């Protein structure tokens, strides 16, 4: 258990550096970051937040079921977590496609009518790196959950031995926490400009 927490602390260090860099650039280009954030799709973003929170619930319930030796409910809850996690990724990739279509991906094809195009582009640099790193964590998590599902099916876990399920639950919860903050810094800052 403690080992997974130590790993998660190293993850805080990795994401923490990115959040730090984001904060520094946002202080340098406050108006550009707010204006760029207004173009985020708040409907898809908030729905995805609710979806990921739901997957955290099913993951926590799966870990609790495994701890009690309830392998049947654990199996279904793990499968539900995989499915809900996949829906999150699908919506995320739809968003990526919309950014691609609207020339919001930094690089040669980047276009914006907003003032301070450099600042707007930096917003999208952070957006793609941070949500991309988060999406990679989700894909890894789904892989871990798939392995757990097979192990549960094979009867590898019991009331005595179930640490892999609990430890993966910690990882999944951490990935959800990262998204909560990504939602706050990428989707929310421009909403008041809609008025």
């Amino acid at each position, binding site marked *: 258990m403690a080992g997974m927490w130590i790993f998660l*602390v190293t993850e805080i260090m990795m994401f*923490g550096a990115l959040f*730090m860099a984001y904060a520094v650039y946002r202080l340098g280009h406050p108006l550009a970051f707010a204006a760029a954030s207004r173009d985020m799709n708040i409907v898809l973003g*908030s729905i995805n937040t609710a979806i990921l929170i739901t997957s955290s619930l099913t993951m926590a319930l799966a870990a609790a079921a495994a701890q009690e030796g309830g392998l049947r409910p654990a199996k279904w809850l793990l499968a539900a977590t995989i499915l809900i996690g996949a829906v999150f990724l699908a919506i995320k990739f739809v968003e990526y496609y919309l950014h691609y279509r609207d020339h919001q991906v930094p690089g040669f094809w980047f276009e914006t009518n907003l003032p301070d195009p450099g600042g707007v582009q930096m917003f999208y640099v952070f957006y793609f790196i941070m949500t991309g790193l988060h999406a990679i964590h989700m894909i890894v998590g789904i892989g871990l959950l798939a392995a757990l599902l097979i192990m549960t099916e094979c009867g590898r876990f019991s009331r005595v031995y179930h640490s892999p399920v609990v430890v993966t*639950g910690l990882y999944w919860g951490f990935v959800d*926490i990262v998204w909560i903050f990504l*939602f706050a810094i990428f989707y929310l800052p421009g909403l008041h400009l809609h008025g």
Partner: protein
Amino acid sequence: MAEPVVARKIYLRAYAALLGLTLATTLLAFLDMGRFNTIVALVIAVIQASLIAGVFMQALYESALVRVILGGGVLWFLILITLTMTDYLTRSR
């Protein structure tokens, strides 16, 4: 390893609170509160993170060792933020 299993009711309450806070933070972001927009969004995010870590990840029920590890990680992150901000927030423009 005999971890205490949290009652299902507590999980569901935390889940309801998390969804409620997501709705609240989204609606509040539509108001123009100046610099408080960022503060409100971050405070709600910290509350949500605490709910996930405390209840779903059972940090509230963990050993002192785990609490020290987690506290150390959060402390180091705050040092990173605080020391950097002593520079960027106090520059003359």
